């Protein structure tokens, strides 16, 4: 497989804020990977949604900027009304290209761009959501040998997005939010032990 995990990317839509409130606090301080969140939000909600997690997270939160540095141990949010892309493994890029799946940011767009730079070192996570965005992106991560994680549709506030992903690929892990949190928290460690 890979030389180890390099980044976590999470896609979510309807119900996403509540789901992230459960998931993000489970990641420990000093987490060794960058965590990138692509959530469908209203274009005018300029980073305000992020504040909801601020006091419950161990990790510092930031809105991704164009040509901004991708740092381990941070949670980066895609800014509303932009597509979030990856110029290389340490640099974000933004675009205002047309919406994909009626969304900007589109999860498919970000996942595909992320796998182009992180390859098999990418961990892709699909959480609750009300449309099909992200399914194709997760399939690309799967095809390149990355790790795929999908929230168990039975536990999702809106099961449509996890189901759409599972229709395309058999994810490596199908779990509740709490278990996804535990898995993500433990993954980098198991990787180091294995080496």
């Amino acid at each position, binding site marked *: 497989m890979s030389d180890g995990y390099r980044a976590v990317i999470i896609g979510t839509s309807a119900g996403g804020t509540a789901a992230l409130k459960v998931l993000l606090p489970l990641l420990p301080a000093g987490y060794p990977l960058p965590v990138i969140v692509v959530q469908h939000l209203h274009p*005018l909600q*300029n980073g305000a949604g992020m504040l909801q997690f601020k006091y419950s997270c161990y990790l510092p939160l930031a*809105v*991704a*900027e*164009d*040509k901004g540095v991708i740092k381990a141990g941070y949670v980066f949010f895609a*800014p509303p*009304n*932009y597509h979030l*892309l*990856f*110029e*290389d493994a340490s640099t974000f*890029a*933004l*675009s*205002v*290209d*047309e919406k994909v799946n009626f969304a900007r940011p589109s999860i498919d*767009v970000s996942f595909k*761009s992320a796998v*182009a*730079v992180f*390859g098999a070192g990418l961990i892709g996570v699909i959480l609750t959501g009300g449309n099909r965005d992200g399914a194709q992106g997760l399939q690309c991560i799967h095809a390149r040998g990355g790790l795929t994680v999908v929230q168990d549709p039975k536990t999702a506030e809106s099961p449509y997005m996890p189901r759409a992903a599972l229709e395309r690929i058999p994810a490596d892990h199908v779990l509740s939010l709490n278990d996804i949190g535990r898995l993500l928290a433990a993954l980098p460690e198991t990787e180091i032990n294995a080496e």
Partner: protein
Amino acid sequence: MQENERIEIDLFLEAIFRRYGYDFRHYARASVRRRLERLMMRSGAASIVELIPLVLHDELFAQTAIYEFSITVTEMFRDPDFYSAVRSKVLPYLATYPFMRIWIAGCATGEEVYSLAIILQEEGVYDRTTFFATDFNDQALQQAQDGIYPLNSIRDYTPNYQLAGGRNSFADYYHAGYQSAVMDPGLKAHITFANHNLVTDGVFGEMHLILCRNVLIYFDKELKNRVLHLLHDSLVYGGFLCLGTRESLQFTEVQEAFKPFDIKQRVYQKQNR
């Protein structure tokens, strides 16, 4: 694998440049990759190298490819807070000049140009302003000049116009037809639409205000720096440069040459020497 992809992209961009003179070699790779994917899908090419003979020998395809690389997605009053800041902070400053020159660099289909023209009209300074709206995509530029937009998208802009502090009804600024809206010709009176390529063309005038929003995000760091020097050289001292709300001058070569005027809205002012 990733090294091969880089070589293929380089070769494709080199082919366009040497054959047609359009220089995309320093465009941000993240977006280039997306565009090439789309071109491959459209043409049925299985790899990026397969696009090279197409672009060299088929001029129609080359035209499509070149347009594919130019950004044509804009909205009116995108980021209403930005337009409010122009209205309440930038214009009072610029209004002290006897006349103003404004450059909308990379105007695409013109939505931003009309948004700004509306603000200047409402603030009573339109008549002493000259606008230069430029793009390298002639097709987009023609659309900008025509000022005709789909009616449903115009309706979507109405709340943004209001949030930007609009003083009238947005419908006052366009004439609605069956499916499209024609912008009020009065808005166009002081706008010059012209072809200008930020990558290859130079300074053409001394501006008081430059909008270059969400354009530099498509360039790599080197090209971004080069274009920022061009924009800097095109401004009077005390003139303003406006970027998109998620891009900045931080870590660029011109960072010291500007001072942040409204950092949240990414409005910068050119420093006196």
